[in-house]
């Protein structure tokens, strides 16, 4: 393939994943957005949930994000979330416990816990 996307997924305190990909699928408040090479520059909000990156080697990388941003320019995609975690890093049991604990921590914490659990169980 001639073109590919340079993707970096960064959380506030670390880089979660970076590499090249053929397509990135994320969720904005207005629905899902799929980005392929050659996409126009976009700066969009993300809602808590899963971001799927199909890497050029064919594997699907699923990342749970707590919300944040997606910026696309010249085949470079940056996904910026305050919290982000690879599906493989999430412990399902722990995520369940955290969801239960997050019930009284407000909307943001609850949504993030839910997103983690969804991503973990969809593995």
């Amino acid at each position: 393939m001639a073109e590919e996307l340079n993707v970096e997924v960064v959380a506030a305190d670390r880089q979660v994943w970076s590499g090249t990909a053929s397509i990135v699928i994320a969720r904005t408040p207005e629905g899902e957005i799929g980005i392929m090479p050659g996409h126009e520059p976009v700066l969009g909000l993300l809602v808590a949930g899963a971001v799927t990156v199909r890497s050029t080697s064919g594997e699907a990388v699923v990342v749970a994000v707590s919300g944040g941003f997606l910026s696309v320019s010249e085949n470079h995609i940056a996904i910026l979330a305050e919290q982000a975690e690879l599906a493989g890093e999430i412990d399902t049991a722990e995520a369940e416990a955290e969801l239960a604990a997050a019930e009284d921590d407000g909307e943001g914490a609850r949504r993030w816990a839910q997103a983690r659990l969804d991503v973990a169980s969809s593995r």
Partner: protein
Amino acid sequence: MGAQLRELRQRIRSVESIKKITRAQELIATSRIARAQQYAEAARPYSRALVTAMEAAAERARLDNPLLEGVEEPRRSAVLVVTSDGGFAGAYSANVIRQSEALSGLLRDQGQETVPYVVGKKGVTWFRFRGRELGGDYQGFTGKPSYADARRIADDLLEAINTPTEEGGVDEIHIVSTHFRNMVTQEVRARRLFPIMVEEVPDELYHAEAGAVRGDAESQSAPAASASSSNGRGERSEVLPLYEFEPSADEVLDALLPQYAGNLVYTALLDAAASEWAARRRAMKNATDNAGELQETLTRQSNSARQAEITQEISEIVGGADALAAAGSE
């Protein structure tokens, strides 16, 4: 054994154990500096990407946000003071507090009230002892700050700046923290975080940095890649691509600003943590060196005391023998 000699040996032993402790502290601090730097390094991609996004969004959005547009005459300012929880770090906390007092004085001269928000036990104790009212106090993480800590502080500050001044809110947010230049140099810096500014401010207290976007209206048409660089923006000079905003530039900017604030506080905390450990390492190294010197001096003293004792014993024996010999010959 003579009393003097015993006392000297006791002191040598105690200096020795102090030296062991300070030496251990020094080694711990050295390893923590490296770790703090690693955290700062790990946070860099996020800062970089966030700043680019901010520049793009701010270029296109309306600018009536209190975080971007300052008021004509600010009346109250929040000052975030980053000190340390622990001692044994030389003048680390004292330097920050001194600088924050200087900044507060400057702001008061301009007719502003200041509300301190203090990070670190040392600072909190200092302000409490003087009966100052704190906007917020944060303790227990200065050596190893997490993003959640920064988020909490940033949320409090944002709440203050979004509250009207009449109801106890603030117009500006300043931060006084220590910047880690390298292992030997750390400098205390006072900066204004919000409203965001990029142009150099003549006040010598401010080292021009902080902020990614120009808040004034005429900069909207100018390319936003501005010079003064703190987060690795310096290398970029091309014009930003024309972004499509999803859902709209205003909404994107409104959501970006809190994340940006969190990131600013987080990087400041990490910078301060590295500086704190560096200051502690230096203080502990000096203490270790001093203990070594003291140990040497005391060892010399105890050697001469021991020698004096031996000499005295010999002269007593010789004197005794002489006396006996004199008594026997009579």
